């Protein structure tokens, strides 16, 4: 696992790009703080600032997911995995729903008003609304 870490690092370096947190355009939420985003993605709360129950959406592709967690909480995927693994037994929190790729994630956000997801800034379309910029 540790040996793999340098390999995982390389794709991230390739995508040295801003990432954004996105919601449905119909959402009443217009902007979010970093803490609000962390709390939702790391399972602390599942409520949006608007009061609706949030549906966080992860991307299965390790490159994009890695970039997102690096920018959001400065942790690599192994650490995030370990974090969730610890919580499996208590059952108090569940990890976000994992979309197979970034396109599917974008689609989910565009179609689900309570969904909250992330993508590279370059991938943002008009069907989603950016609520937080994540800069390296």
């Amino acid at each position, binding site marked *: 696992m540790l040996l793999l870490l340098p390999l995982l690092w390389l794709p991230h370096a390739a995508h040295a790009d801003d990432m954004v947190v996105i919601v449905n355009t119909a959402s009443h939420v217009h902007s979010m703080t970093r*803490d609000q985003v*962390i709390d939702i993605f*790391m*399972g*602390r709360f599942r409520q949006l600032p608007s009061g609706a129950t949030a549906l966080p959406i992860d991307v299965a592709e390790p490159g994009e997911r890695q970039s997102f967690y690096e920018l*959001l*909480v*400065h*942790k690599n995927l192994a650490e995030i995995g370990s*974090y969730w693994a*610890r*919580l499996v*037994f*208590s*059952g*108090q*929190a569940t990890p976000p729903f994992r979309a197979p790729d970034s396109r599917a994630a974008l689609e989910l956000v565009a179609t689900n008003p309570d969904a909250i997801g992330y993508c590279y800034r370059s991938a943002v379309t008009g069907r989603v609304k950016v609520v937080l910029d994540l800069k390296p």
Partner: protein
Amino acid sequence: MTSSLDHLLRLISRLAPRSVVARTTLAIFGFSLVLGLGFALAAANLVHEHEYSRLESELEQLVSTVESTTQIACYLNDQTLAREVVTGLMKTDAVGGVRIMSGNNVLYESMRPGTTRRGKRVAQIDRPINSPFDASRQVGSMTVYLSPAQLHAHAWTYTRFILLILAGEVAAVSGGVALTVFLVVTRPIKGISDELHRLRQRAGPLLQVPAGNEGDEIGRLVADVNSLIASLNQLVEAERSLRIQHEVFERQMRLVLEKTALGICIMDEHGALQSCNPAFLRLLAIPKLGTDAARTLQQILAPYAAEIGEMISRCHAVGKPCEADFEVWREEHAAVNWIELSLNPLGPQLLLGVIDDVTERKRSVAAAQQLAMSDPLTGLLNRRGLEAAIAHAFAAAANPGGLAMLAIDLDHFKEVNDTLGHEAGDRVLHHVGRVIAAAVRRTDLVGRLGGDEFLAVLVGVGPAQQALQIAEDIIARLDAPLELQGTAVRVGASIGIAVSAGNEDNPAALLRRADAAMYASKQAGRGRARLAEESAEQAEQAEEPERPEEPEKRSA
């Protein structure tokens, strides 16, 4: 308060052992015990502090190991996770309790009994718990309590160890002190003391310095004691020789006192005798002083009580010796003795009396006087003796009128002397002296003035006629022939008589008148007695012209 303190001190002194070793050891033991307890107390405190901080840092480390899990538990408000953390921590004995807070709510808590006892200081570690994703965001807190029982158990273990070491040290030091005091102080002192005890019986030798103590305090003590002993010995020796000397001297003095012929006595200022020597008793003919304290010198010499009393008070007042002679009657010798008494002041109230028997001296003086006063040829008084006797008689006689002076001159002595020699002359003179002495009374004075001139003084004679009668008796006796070398010799005598007048007190004048009368009787034809004129002037007139008549006597 003070009496109770005294009582306590008495009790302590009674309970304290008599041996120096035991006392020193006890003192050191007590001191070490107190000091050791103090140290132990301080050490216990120190150990407690140390153990506390040790446990604290241990717990800090412990907390650090579970911090990330706690962060997650707090972040997610996950009670299950929190319980896991707490349960894990509670497995450590040093942990007394754990409390995990999420925000203001207690997420999970577990406490051992007795951990948070009220009023007791409980050690605890407070750790803020931050979000696992944002170190600046606090999501809860964690408090870990140290287990007091554990802390105390650990601290007590260490303290007990220290106490054990200290107790061992106290015992070792006390034992060492006891041994040292015994070896260094008590044993040498005991040795010295034993030697001193023995020393009391045999004088002379000095103490031995105990081996190894030559230069220290004990050595000095022994040296001092030795010098003290030496000086004491010297003192005793000096005292002894002085006493012997004194005894010898006293014996000598006693012997002198007993053997001396001088009577010696000691009396007080009133003359009461206190002691005397045998010679004193012998001289005064008394058996012994007796117990009668009132017996005084005045009583012994009763006839001179006043004189002696005066002597004593004079000697006592002036403080100088004085002496006097006394005549005492000795019954057993039926004789008169002379003693010389001298008094000497002997002290504030004492006098030394010395009595010497001066009888012999007195007698020899009297004999010498007798010799000087008498005429060896006739045994009668000589001129000087006569003068003294006459002066005495004049002074003694109440009335000088009772004196008659007979001037006797031999008529034919010169012829006898010339024809028969001086020896015959001397015999004649001797004969004449005896004749005259026989003619007068014993109390009368008879003397030879020189040559063939004799003088008789009749004391207490009656009328002049009586004197004349005696004179004629003498003439008659001398007129009788005297047998000398086969020759009958007749010396014959002329006598002048002067009877003292009532107003006449001069013996010389009386003698002159008697002489004058004698010359007158010679001129009248010798062999007769003649009364002198009453007038002194007449007698003087008669004296001058009649002196040259002397050759006439020779021719006869």
